[in-house]
């Protein structure tokens, strides 16, 4: 019997840090908070699509094999209000993404911080989703 019960929901919360609480659906229904992942790779595209933006990156593994990952972000309007724009992560840029893996084991993740080549960090996620450690 399945013991893991997960809920989709429209996320919201005002966290101590005061970031907007945004999520069209749940973190837990789709992603596994016990499986953090750090991905360093080359941006292939940023889909500014609703209800959540998706960042695609090619990640080269230790064996030299390139694996494509998709990283879920917040809603485009939330990212825009947070300071993101079309040129924030252009194709070809090498970025490091922290996130949490999809529960189905595919190469998808819920994104949190995106570190740019100059060390600047952009938060791509949806605060209020309940992702671990999201004290922002």
């Amino acid at each position, binding site marked *: 019997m399945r013991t893991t019960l997960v809920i989709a929901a429209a996320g919201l919360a005002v966290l101590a840090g005061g970031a907007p609480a945004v999520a069209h*659906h749940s973190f837990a229904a789709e992603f596994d908070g016990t499986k953090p992942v750090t991905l360093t790779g080359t941006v292939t595209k940023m889909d500014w699509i609703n209800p959540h933006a998706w960042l695609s990156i090619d990640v080269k593994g230790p064996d030299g094999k390139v694996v494509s990952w998709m990283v879920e972000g917040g809603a485009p309007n939330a990212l825009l209000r947070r300071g993101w724009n079309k040129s924030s992560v252009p194709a070809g840029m090498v970025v490091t993404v922290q996130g949490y893996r999809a529960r189905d084991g595919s190469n998808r993740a819920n994104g949190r911080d995106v570190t740019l080549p100059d060390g600047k960090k952009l938060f791509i996620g949806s605060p209020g989703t309940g992702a671990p450690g999201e004290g922002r």
Partner: protein
Amino acid sequence: MRARHRGAAVAIALALAASACQGASTGASADGWTPPRTPDGQPDLQGVWTNYTATPFEVPDERDDLALYSGDTDGTGRGTGPAAFLTDTTGRTLAKGRSLVVDPPNGRVPILPWAEEQRTFKLLHIQDHWEHHTPWERCITRGVPGGIFPTGYGSGYQILQGPGYVAIVYEMIHEARIIPTDSRPHVGSGIRLWNGDSVGRWDGDTLVVDIANYNDKGSIATNAATQRVRSIPQSQDLHVVERFTRVDENTIDYEATIEDPKVFTAPWRVAIPLHREPDYRIFEYACHEGNLAIPNTLSAGRALRVRPR
């Protein structure tokens, strides 16, 4: 699709009419503020409004299963989010009362047990079927009046008026309502709609909208900020009366009285202030263009059935 195009055409016409109304006069009575008027004499509700608030939807009760409503049902603390219901992300303190539900006076929606049981089943089995997701997650609608229940982002509403009509453009999932204000009869009872049939009239300075002809597929509320009411079903007997009253330059008092004898033991009323935000820019939110959450959630459920935790 044809209907959608017609709606867009009406919206454009209303926008043009609204721009023509920009020069409407503003007047204040000696004993208080009175709303400006459009050239054809309607109280002027036009503008961009937001519904950020720090007031919870219901008065919380210790018996509430906040983890269930927020998504943390495996005890890991990782659900949809903290069991919070504050949707004031503006940094302002926008709390007017102890709950947005103002009637009954205890601030609790009088939900029949079967409806709560159905909600709980759907929330617990969200990964099993697309129908267990609320219409919002499915990008269909946040409902009427649910589309005005605060959710914390996508919080803009643009009201446009033309002779005989009021239009409301909702930022969240890009919805628009075209409301006639001539008290016309509702459409025939055989016509059932996700958001019902809205018919308006003016009661003094208040826009009153009567909504009926709902289908029984929707939810009265769709987002976690509505706590216990989220994912509660609506029946074909749902009847809603909305009241929009502009009480000062920057505030519309919005109220919705909700009755659905198949779902609730009594009518209940919610009151939500709408704040004028002339600089707020409403962005397009084309919810269906990439709603990967549904297939990904169902895929997660299939994976869990193969590899139970």
